[in-house]
């Protein structure tokens, strides 16, 4: 268990009382909402990873950039840590508060500042919801491509901080490929523009460095994203398989045919049943796996590609192939997929979502490994994933009210991530390291590599005031983790 901040392993926290920080900030920022009573702090105690909770020392809800700047300057002067929060949908505890830190909530920065249809860009504040950008661009025939399943709720600032992906990433890229410029405030309250309205900027690619940096290097205060013309048409094929391995091979076969689908998603039987039960998307509940393959572009090409993909799927042994008849059915097929997490959540009191990415050729092996591990730990695992880019989301079902079950789910989760690393993959494809995967960082990276990460952090935040205890483990944490691993390597036995 590593949920709570641990001074011994994460670094000595400042010794400054809440009352003192409150008085200082109130004086410097008389007009800003600052929450400090326990009942007001409670709603902010966790992000989307609700098993990880802590009450923040204070919650700041600024409305102007000047307030953010002053807040950062004061916290820097006082040596008080700052945790930035967007919409709080993160799944790795990245926005989990610190009992000795200020939670900086950016949800009030929710304005779309400008849509420029000729330059195909949108300039927005960090608290704008991902989907709101595409909605605002829609009248111009444009949209913002990255579409995390949480897009109705998550903020674009949080997307930049996590380098969020979505079902359309294989073809249209991640957040880092679709953001051209960000405005940033450093922990010292200095202002920087990273990237530019042009296609490149002089100097180091700090824009790339800030994408996915989990609020560790600075606070993103404005974002300019690239907009794309809406494809003329989009069609979805749903293929059923009686064997998950065949479905995995079909993914490779589609790509080998020279086709890059707009989306290529896979779900296993447990996930199919859950989604069908929740949404009624018309999924085949008997199938061992389904593939959803979206082809988008110019009408004539899409028709050609649909024919090719259909042929490939047949050869790969699909038992049934359906083409969504119209826009409504296409939306329904996707609704099942996009609601897969909450759908699985209805089957079990709790679920825990993993996010490993693997080389696609290892799919069958890893799925089998996950199945075996699930049995070993006596827990059910549903699989939903971005098959096109090998990004898996095993969902571990558990009941937190059963003593020890959360710990077992967590341990099963880390075994799954270690399996991903073993086959040449990574512990996180899009949800970030946050607090949750801090130990697995010691598995994926060598001590020397972690030194280099810490050096990059120190260039921007030498005193470690931004989001301490997240993302990059301290040397002390890794040595302790390695010790406990070698001491008690055998996994917890299961009674199930």
């Amino acid at each position, binding site marked *: 268990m590593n949920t709570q901040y641990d001074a011994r392993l994460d670094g000595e926290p400042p010794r400054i009382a809440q009352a003192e920080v409150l008085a200082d900030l109130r004086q410097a920022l008389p007009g800003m909402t600052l929450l400090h009573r326990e009942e007001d702090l409670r709603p902010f105690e966790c992000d989307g990873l609700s098993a990880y909770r802590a009450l923040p020392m204070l919650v700041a809800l600024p409305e102007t950039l000047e307030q953010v700047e002053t807040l950062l300057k004061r916290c820097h002067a006082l040596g008080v840590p700052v945790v930035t929060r967007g919409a709080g949908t993160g799944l790795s505890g990245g926005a989990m508060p610190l009992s000795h830190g200020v939670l900086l909530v950016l949800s009030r920065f929710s304005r779309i500042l400008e849509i420029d*249809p*000729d*330059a*195909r860009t949108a300039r927005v504040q960090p608290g704008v919801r991902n989907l709101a950008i595409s909605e605002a661009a829609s009248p111009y025939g444009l949209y913002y491509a990255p579409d995390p399943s949480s897009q109705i709720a998550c903020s674009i600032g949080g997307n930049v901080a996590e380098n969020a992906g979505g079902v359309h990433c*294989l073809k249209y890229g991640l957040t*880092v*490929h679709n953001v051209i410029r960000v405005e940033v405030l450093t922990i010292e309250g*200095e202002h*920087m523009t990273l990237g*530019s309205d*042009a*296609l490149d*900027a*002089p*100097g*180091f*690619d*700090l824009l790339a*460095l800030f994408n996915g940096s989990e609020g*560790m290097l600075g606070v993103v205060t404005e974002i300019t994203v690239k907009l794309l*013309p*809406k*494809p003329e048409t989009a069609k979805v094929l749903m293929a059923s398989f009686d064997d998950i391995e065949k479905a995995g091979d079909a993914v490779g076969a589609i*790509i*080998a045919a*020279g*086709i*890059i689908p707009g989306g290529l998603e896979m779900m296993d039987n447990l996930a199919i049943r859950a989604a069908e039960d929740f949404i009624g998307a018309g999924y085949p509940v008997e199938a061992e796996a389904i593939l959803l393959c979206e082809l988008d*572009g*110019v*009408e*004539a*090409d899409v028709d050609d*590609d649909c024919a090719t993909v259909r042929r490939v799927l047949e050869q790969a042994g699909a038992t049934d192939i359906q083409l969504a008849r119209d826009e409504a059915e296409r939306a329904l097929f996707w609704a099942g997929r996009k609601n897969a997490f909450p759908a699985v959540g209805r089957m079990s009191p709790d679920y825990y979502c993993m996010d490993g*990415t*693997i*080389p*696609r*050729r290892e799919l069958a092996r890893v799925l089998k490994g996950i199945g075996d591990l699930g049995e070993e730990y006596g827990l059910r695992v549903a699989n939903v994933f971005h098959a*096109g*880019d090998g*990004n898996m989301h095993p969902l571990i079902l558990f009941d937190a009210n059963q003593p020890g079950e959360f710990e077992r789910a967590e341990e099963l989760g880390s075994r799954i991530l270690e399996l991903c690393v073993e086959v*040449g993959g*990574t512990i*996180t*494809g*899009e*949800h*970030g*390291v946050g607090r949750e*995967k801090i130990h*697995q*960082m010691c598995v994926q990276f060598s001590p*020397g590599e972690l030194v*280099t*990460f810490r050096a*990059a*952090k120190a*260039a921007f935040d030498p005193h470690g005031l931004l989001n301490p205890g997240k993302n*990059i483990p301290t040397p002390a944490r890794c040595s302790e983790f390695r010790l406990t691993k070698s001491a008690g390597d055998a996994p917890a036995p299961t009674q199930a």
Partner: protein
Amino acid sequence: MVTTHDTPHHDIPGHDASEALAERIRRAEAEGTPLRLVGGDTKAFFGRKVQGRTGEAEALSTREHRGITEYDPVELIVSVRAGTPLRELEAALAANGQMLPCEPPHFGDDATVGGMIATGLSGPRRPWAGSVRDFVLGTRIITRQGSEQRFGGQVMKNVAGYDLSRLMVGAQGTLGLITEVSMKVLPLPGASRSLHLDMPLKDALEKLAEWGRQPLPITAAAWLDGALHLRLEGGPSSVAATAERLGGDELLDGFWEALREQRLDFFAAEDPRALWRLSLPHHTPVLEVPGVTVETDVLYDWAGCQRWVRSDADAEAIRSVARQAGGHATCWRGAGGKAVDEPFTPLDPVIEKYHRNLKAQLDPQGIFNPGRLYAAF
């Protein structure tokens, strides 16, 4: 899938020289002597000279460290050592019906994969497909301690730790020696047609903005010599339909490569004026660039986002025009082909501070290409 370490792969000779490179770097770090990192040395003209203690710094070549270490076309990922000639990598991809979508320029037969990453230069497809950094998935670098470290990975998505792989792109070797890179590759387009449309410049820029809002299969657009040059790529049906709709004449094969490699007359070395590169936002109008007297002094690539300019005007005057339009200007080649002291746009003071901080953290003694990008680091 084939994994090789020291054996040939796809007919490319492979050799792992990482230990020798690491050893040389450890020595440089111990002695505190700067190194000038070189691949094919084809882009030496681009950027500042690297100073050693006396005269130019000693060169450290990556050429011996070469070969494809992993390439499984179905994964759409290739991993390749930095000293591999770019030409060989591209041939291996083409043999499998794939390509580097960012279309990097070579500027000479010997250009290496490491040079492509370190300079981060992309070709005509850039505005539609993305830049070199967009296709980087992972890198191995040798740090100042002489240890080879791996960032990013050989998978499509990876957000574990900071994105140091993409940070290396365009850093011109000032943060470490790149030994290997993993890149996303894509299938070659099913069909390709290039068109030549006689059209005044203003109309061309308007048309490009209009077409940009439509889902057309355009993958290159340049205006020069009174005509818009367009490339269409994608499925055979849409390419044929779009070509018919837009009209114009067929453009000769080889135009895009000549543009990318700067072999068009516009770039002729005999022209004594400086060559500038202006990087600008989409839909930037025709600009009044100082020193530009006739329309043919400017070549518009990237649908107008990358403009090559022949001008002898004062650097600050040119930079200020680019800045006001929301972009920046690089002096690609000084007047008379001479090197200039400050080729890249000076950085804003806060940004520069963090560049210096990063350099101080990753290379405190300045052994990696010091002064190559900016005099300050």
